[in-house]
Each structure stands twice: as structure tokens, then as C-alpha cells.
């Protein structure tokens, strides 16, 4: 944990004082801007959650804990990846610490659990969670998402699999959570519309101790398998997949978190050559990332991945918005409008938002290679300015049900 004990004690003291004098803190205008980070530091999603905290702290430290001329107080809350706790922690950040905005949460179901509370309390929220409908059928006016929806990177990946890799028959496998369902659904839709067939769809439980049963069940005559895992599950699945000798039979490809940098560092040669898609790669060659990625690697000993980049990018969006409004985070409607109007260059490339508060930005097709002795996601193709609606018309897209286990229906499954 890079937050050292003194920071923690100071933070505790500050928040305790904040709790004692909430009225005073609220009235004061020139004081620090308080940012609440909702992250997960315990449970199966913790590795990503800790990266979120590290990168955001790094972002703030680089700016001397100041954004738009005002001091920043960061208050970190651990939701444990449990919806009810996420809600309690959000209330704590808003009601006790009087935060001006929230960054996070990590998981889709956490975002859905705090959705109505954010509306009611009117807290600008820079989400990391990918829940589709938060920026689609039930758009939350207090929400911006600079990362992506679950399927935003799966659409181009499916396009790439069908058109460039010429796969015809594929399997999808993902964690049995909304994130996994939505990602695989988006992949299936674009892949099948480009002439491919999804012949098998598997959803192992998020906390499956062993993937043996699922690996043994795979149809070995498929061209490739799409991995939609989150956290360390992609790594665990792939290891068993290789142990069963399947890597020569079915080519694995992945979504935005399956071979994330945060798990790639634990992998070996079995990961080489696997193609994935994401809105970020530590290998990105833009001026911001050329500073960020090496600095992160130097401090923590591994490459930043999805979760680290997420809060680093959200930080850049926040800074740009605060600059527009001259640091007046108290004016919530103006703050929110500024957030949605942001156009800024970030570690992931240029970022802007659509009418629903979701990012329009580049999506990269990456391939695992060995470079300087470590595994990296080298960029092999860029899909510029990808929207959450892919190439579909937003109205038609939204007229369909939200992506799920059962929509779009899979008509090509083989028994």
C-alpha cells in the first residue's frame, strides 16, 4: 500500500474533523476539493482496486495535490465489491466527508446499487464501472465514464476477429456477472453480423475455484475462444487451458481485462501472441503515457493496466473540467456540464463524451509480445473514436434490450 501510515492518520484526522464540522466545511469556498474514491481493496476484485488507488494518488502527487489551483483531499473507501457496502460507503463519502465528486466504483453492480443515490444527492461521478445501461437506457445525469462500457471494446475486437483474423466459429467465455454477459453479447452481435458463428457460450461463476470442468467442455473444433474475464480469472483460466493442451487447437483472444497488464506480469510464454482489445495499453506511444507508464513501472515494479489507467484518465478529465470552471467544484450543475464537455488528451489518447456521458475514444487491438524481458500488450491496430454504440445508430441501439446472457439470442450454438 503506497498510502503511508502518516497519510492515513492525517486523512483520518482530516475526515474526523470534517465529520465534526460539516456545516463549516460546506460553507467554506476556498478550502480543498474533496474527491471520494470508491474502490475495492478486499475480495476477488482487489488487485484492480488497489491499482485504481495507486494511479490516482500518483496523478495527484504529480500535480502537487492541486488541481485548478485548489488543494485536493482524496478519501479512499473500500466497498469490498459488495453492492450494499458500496452504497453505505458512498453515503459515508457524501454525507460525512462532503466530497465534491466521486471516482469509481469498480464493478457494474456497485454502480447500479448507488445509481439512484447519486441522482438524489447529485454528486458528479466519474465511473470506472462498465455497466452499459448507466449511459444508455437509464442514463444518469451525474455520470461520466472515461473508460468504456462493457462491450465498447468487444465490438471492435469482434470486427477484427471476423474481418482480419478470418475466424468463422468461436466460443465465448466470461465471468458470470453483468460485465461478462454484456461484453460477450456485444462481441457475439458484431461477430455474427460479420458472418461468424458463436458455437458455444460459457459463464463460469466469478469465484470458480477451478476451471477444469469448463476447459474439458470446450468444443475443440472452434477457431478461437474469446476470453471476457475480469481480475485474475483470465490468468487462472488461461493457465488451465494451456495445461490441457488446448492452446494449439483453439486460439485464445481476449476482451479488455482478460490479459490486463496487472495479470500479464504473472504469466509466461503461454500468453505470447494472444490478441486482445482495450482502450489502453501500457505500450501506447503518446506523450502522456510515455511519462505515466514508465513512472508507474518504476514505482510499483509492474506496468499499469486497465484499472490504473482508468483512474489516471479520470483524473485528467477531472482536472480539465475543474480548469474550465475555475476550480469551483461547489457549483454542481456547472461542474457536471464541464465534465461532459471535456475534450482532453489523456494517457489513453483523446477523450470526449457523447450525449449520454460515455466516452468516445480510441480502442486498440493489442498482441502479447516479449519486450525487455517482460510481457507487454503491443498495439497492432487502432480503431479511432469508438463510441459505445459502435457503428449502430444510437436510437436503434437503444431500442433493443440491454446486452445480457440471453440478448442477443445465440442462434448458432452447437450441442
Amino acid at each position, binding site marked *: 500500500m503506497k498510502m503511508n501510515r502518516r497519510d492515513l492518520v492525517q486523512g483520518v484526522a482530516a475526515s474526523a474533523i470534517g465529520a465534526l464540522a460539516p456545516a463549516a466545511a460546506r460553507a467554506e469556498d476556498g478550502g480543498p476539493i474533496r474527491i471520494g474514491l470508491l474502490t475495492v481493496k478486499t475480495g476477488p476484485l482487489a488487485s484492480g482496486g488497489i491499482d485504481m488507488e495507486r494511479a490516482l494518488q500518483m496523478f495527484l502527487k504529480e500535480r502537487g495535490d492541486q488541481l485548478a489551483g485548489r488543494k485536493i483531499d482524496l478519501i479512499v473507501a473500500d466497498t469490498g465489491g459488495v453492492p*450494499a457496502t458500496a452504497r453505505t460507503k458512498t453515503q459515508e463519502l457524501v454525507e460525512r466527508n462532503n466530497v465534491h465528486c466521486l471516482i469509481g466504483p469498480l464493478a*457494474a453492480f456497485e454502480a447500479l*446499487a448507488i445509481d439512484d443515490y447519486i441522482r438524489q444527492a447529485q454528486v458528479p461521478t466519474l465511473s470506472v464501472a462498465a455497466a452499459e445501461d448507466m449511459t444508455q437506457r437509464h442514463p444518469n445525469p451525474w455520470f461520466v465514464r472515461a473508460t468504456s462500457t462493457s462491450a465498447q471494446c468487444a465490438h471492435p475486437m469482434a470486427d477484427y476477429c471476423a474481418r482480419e483474423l478470418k475466424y468463422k466459429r468461436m466460443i465465448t467465455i466470461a465471468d458470470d456477472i453483468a460485465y461478462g454477459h454484456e461484453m460477450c453479447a456485444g462481441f457475439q452481435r458484431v461477430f455474427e453480423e460479420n458472418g461468424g458463428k458463436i458455437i458455444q457460450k460459457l459463464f463460469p461463476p466469478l469465484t470458480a475455484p477451478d476451471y477444469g470442468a469448463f476447459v474439458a467442455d470446450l468444443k475443440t473444433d472452434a477457431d478461437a475462444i474469446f476470453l471476457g474475464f475480469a481480475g485474475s480469472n483470465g490468468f487462472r483460466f488461461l493457465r488451465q487451458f494451456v495445461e490441457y493442451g488446448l492452446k494449439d487447437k483453439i486460439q485464445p483472444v481476449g476482451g479488455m481485462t482478460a490479459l490486463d497488464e496487472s495479470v500479464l506480469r504473472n504469466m509466461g510464454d503461454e500468453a505470447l501472441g494472444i490478441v486482445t482489445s482495450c482502450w489502453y495499453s501500457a505500450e501506447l506511444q503518446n506523450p502522456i503515457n510515455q511519462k505515466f507508464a514508465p513512472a508507474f513501472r518504476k514505482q510499483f515494479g509492474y506496468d499499469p493496466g486497465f484499472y490504473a489507467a482508468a483512474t489516471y484518465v479520470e483524473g485528467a478529465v477531472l482536472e480539465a473540467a475543474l480548469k474550465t470552471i475555475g476550480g469551483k467544484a461547489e457549483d454542481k450543475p456547472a461542474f457536471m456540464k464541464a465534465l461532459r464537455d471535456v475534450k482532453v488528451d489523456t494517457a489513453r489518447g483523446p477523450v470526449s463524451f457523447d450525449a449520454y456521458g460515455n466516452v468516445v475514444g480510441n480502442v486498440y487491438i493489442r498482441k502479447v509480445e516479449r519486450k525487455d524481458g517482460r510481457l507487454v500488450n503491443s498495439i497492432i491496430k487502432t480503431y479511432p473514436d469508438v463510441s459505445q454504440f459502435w457503428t449502430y445508430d444510437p436510437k436503434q441501439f437503444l431500442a433493443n434490450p440491454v446486452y445480457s446472457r440471453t440478448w442477443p439470442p445465440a442462434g448458432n450454438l452447437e450441442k
Partner: protein
Amino acid sequence: MSRASLILALTALVALALLPFYAGEYFINLASQILIAAIFASSLNLLVGYGGLTSLGHAAFVGVSAYVFAWLTTHAGAGPAVAAAAALVGATIVACVFGLVALRATGLGFLMITLAFSQILWGLAYRWASVTNGDNGISGIPRFSPFGLSLDGAAAFYWFTLALCVIAFAAIAAFASSAFGAALRGTRDEPRRMAALGHDVRLIRWITFVYAGFWAGVAGLLYVNYNKFIHPSAMSITNSAEGLLAVIAGGSGTLAGPIVGATLIMLLKNYVSAYVERWNMLLGFVFVAIVLIAPDGVIPGLRRAAARIRGGRK
């Protein structure tokens, strides 16, 4: 109840009723959550403490009641009052059915069957996405407004919860101290003798199971109204186990025990966790400490300590 504990309870009640006047919004909400957890733990205590039936599936009734309320208000367009009544009926019916099967066993067998049942419902909540919305949960649930009073404010909801809580504790206390409660304790300590005396042991247990299920349903109703969101994790084994921990830590078979235990767990989980990163570990230490110092729970431990002090004075 002795006069001392009656005075203590009344003082606590007054302090609780006045809480919104001296505590911030966050603490009012935290107190509401503690009260909800206390109702849940107290209902489980009927089974664990008085009936000697350790259940690891009690959160299922919370979930059933919460899901029925959520579904009826959001999908079926029912009013909150109708939905609330249906939720309680739903939880009670599920308890009737589960009780019939689970009570064929006692001890470990009972524990495993309740666990299995709650896991079935948990799985159903995940899978039956057309009704439960699966892993996305049901959101946008309105809070009920009894007699036209809006409960959207933190204080209003807290007072409502407190009132229900008092009713729940009174009802559970009355149940435990009645002749039926004595018979229940009899089935816990001497089931064969009770059977020989002509009591229908299974019927006594079944009625208790249903009654406990009903009050867990009340806790579920408050839970869903508080969160305005329901997710399958509400009936996960973690939630069932937390209730059980609250009962055991506070002192099973005592009225105040589950309340103390639930308070302890909720404070550690929601309040202390802001300051202590490894609060899970702290929770572990607290339980080890309780087991070492007062193996039968905080309340029996305090009682013994009080008796010792009084004894020393004489």
C-alpha cells in the same frame, strides 16, 4: 426482565429515538442499517439460541421478501403497501415450505439443508434474469410511505425502522418468554423427553422456523426500502453467516445478544473499515477475543462479570 435491565432498555430506547437530533445524516443511516441487522439477527436467534437449530440460510427470507417487494413495485405496478404485505406473505410461505423439509434433520443436517436452500434461491436470483434482472439487480425501487408519510428522509426512515424494531423485539421477546418458548427450549435441551411428554417436537420447531422466517422477512422489507436496490448478494451465504456471527458473538439465547452482535458487526464493517484497511482481520481478532474471554457471547459474559462484581461486594 429485571428492573435494572428494563431501565437500561428504556434509556437506550430514548437515546435511540432522539438520535436524529444530535447525529449527522451519515450516522442516522448507519443506525438504520444496524437496526435492520439487529432484527435479522434476533429472528435468527429464535432458531439458534432458543431452538438449538443452527441455520446457515436465514438470509434467504431477507432476499425473498426484498425481491417480492422490488418486483411488485417496479414490474407489476403494485403500491408499496400491497407489495409490503405480499413480501411478508412470500417470506412466510417460503419459510413454511423450507421448514417442512429442513426440520427432518437437526444439527449438521439441518445446517446443510438450510444452506442448500438459500443457495438455491441465491442461484435463482442470479439466473432468473427476466424477473430478478440477474447480476444487475433491481434498482429504482420506491420507499413505502405509511399513512402518507414520506420516508425518503434519513430521519423519517430511521424512526420508522426504530418503531418496527421495537415491535419486532417485543414480539420476539413475548414469543421467547411464553409457554411456547419454554416448550421450544425444552425441545432444544431434551427433545426425547419432550416427545415422551406428548409435545410434538417437530411442530414446535416448525412454528418457530416460520415465525423466525417472518421476522427475517420484515428485516428484508426494511433492507430493500433502505437500499432501494436489491442484488443476489443480499441472500448470499456471507449474509447468512454474518447474522449467525452476530448471534453467537452477542450471546445466543439472550434477547439483547443479537442486538449487540449485529451492532458490533455493522460498526466494524461500515464504520471502522474507513480507518482500518484490513478490517476483515480486525473482525477476526474481535471474534477470537470474544471466544477467549466470553465463549458464550458478550451479553452472558457481561452478566457474569456483573455478578462477580456484585458477589465481591457482599
